[in-house]
């Protein structure tokens, strides 16, 4: 493991199977094949690919929500602060919690800081993602989809982790807001040295934020290069298709 690598993944594979109700098994879908990559400290790796390419499976394996059947995930140093931000923030927010409680939750779980301190940090975290303090008292169902997504990001940021895995976390946001959060994440990265694994289908976003882009297709990493070199170094048709289509849709 390189000295400044925060995460190393080697030979990761994962297959899903479905059982029939009388006991038999339907043959599995291979979601990930032999994935290898490293994330350096304070840098961003983007994993791009279409839906069904295995992106979410990868995120879940990284977060420990799924057990891969082969390969290893090594984090540098222990304990390593890792946070995962999901694709569907509404599902990840406890409906009985107020926004303040949602954001403070990681601190509460880790027993950090007194109540007023936590409140302050929560308010600060909210401001950072562009939400006003008035949100603090509201429940998640009273917020719009975009606000909920920002809340989930604020929650991850509050413990200032070393690595954040963002699984399509910025997809549902308005362009303006996406820019704002992207800038915020970049700012946090340069100040605090947080590493990101940005899982997204948006090549444009990946190009703006990441030091390196890994293209995932059908469970394999087919290309991996810095954004500027991706087009020239791409070997796989999926990558070329992605680049061409992104150009058409660019604002």
């Amino acid at each position: 493991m390189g000295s400044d690598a925060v995460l190393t993944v080697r030979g990761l594979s994962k297959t899903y199977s479905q059982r029939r109700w009388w006991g038999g098994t339907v043959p599995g879908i291979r979601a990930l094949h032999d994935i290898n990559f490293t994330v350096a400290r304070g840098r961003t790796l983007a994993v791009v690919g279409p839906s069904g390419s295995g992106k979410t499976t990868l995120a879940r394996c990284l977060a420990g929500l799924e057990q891969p059947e082969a390969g290893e995930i090594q984090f540098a140093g222990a304990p390593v602060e890792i946070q995962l931000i999901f694709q569907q923030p509404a599902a990840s927010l406890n409906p009985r919690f107020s926004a303040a409680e949602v954001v403070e939750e990681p601190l509460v779980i880790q027993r950090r800081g007194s109540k007023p301190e936590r409140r302050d940090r929560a308010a600060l975290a909210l401001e950072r993602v562009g939400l006003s303090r008035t949100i603090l008292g509201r429940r998640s169902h009273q917020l719009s989809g975009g606000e909920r997504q920002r809340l989930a990001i604020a929650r991850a940021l509050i413990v200032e982790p070393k690595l954040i895995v963002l699984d399509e976390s910025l997809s549902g946001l308005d362009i303006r807001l996406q820019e704002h959060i992207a800038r915020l994440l970049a700012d946090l990265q340069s100040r605090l040295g947080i590493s990101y694994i940005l899982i997204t289908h948006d090549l444009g976003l990946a190009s703006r934020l990441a030091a390196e882009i890994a293209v995932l297709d059908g469970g394999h990493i087919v290309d991996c290069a810095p954004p500027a070199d991706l087009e020239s170094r791409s070997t796989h048709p999926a990558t070329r298709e992605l680049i061409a289509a992104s150009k058409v849709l660019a604002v």
Partner: protein
Amino acid sequence: MASEPVLEVRNLRVGLIGGHQILDGASFEIPKGSITGLFGDSGCGKSTLALALMGLLPPQRYRVEGEILLRGRDLLRLPESEVARVRGAEISLVLQDPLLALNPVLRVRTQIHEVLRAHQRTADPSSLLALAGLKEPHRVLEAYPHQLSGGERQRVTIAQALACRAPLVIADEPFTALDAPRVLELIGLFRRLRADAGVSFLLISHHPGVLAAAADTTFRMHGGILAAQTVSQERGHGV
């Protein structure tokens, strides 16, 4: 436009009973055989508009006023039984979140069959899935929603909307989970359906670039009303 618009909305006002106003006099038209875009920030009421057009806002919670003329008939003046008949048959909706929009305990085959049955159609479900752009229709048909990827689920919901054979399809944020090549494919699909079957679309999205590529005209929703914006205007501002 020579022919009548497929949908004409006049001064639509939607508010929460005992709460704030969501739509405050929205007016717009969808010409027959067009792909119209609706652009707006999240939380501005785009989904509420879609539900209002479908007559799916519960009357106990929402106050709906104005005129919604679907092929000349005002939906807001029709009794619920008539609106139920119109729903799906003349105007259909693809919801925003495909995972939530599909029944978790029924197979895809059943869910498509149910829609066909509701409109007395005998089309082949796998052909509908193929039409919606799914590459392995047979595997998808036998699967349950949680076994499919996000993109596959979305195509299933599109297939369901197509099963209705409605002349107007409203798609609420259909592009959000898709990557660029798939977005282009979906736009191609909408164009093909428009050309072959004369289906008109109302595409709701918060992504201006996509709407610029997909729609003939785009309306911007802001402050409860709509204003028309042309394609070049979108590109220029870059929001």
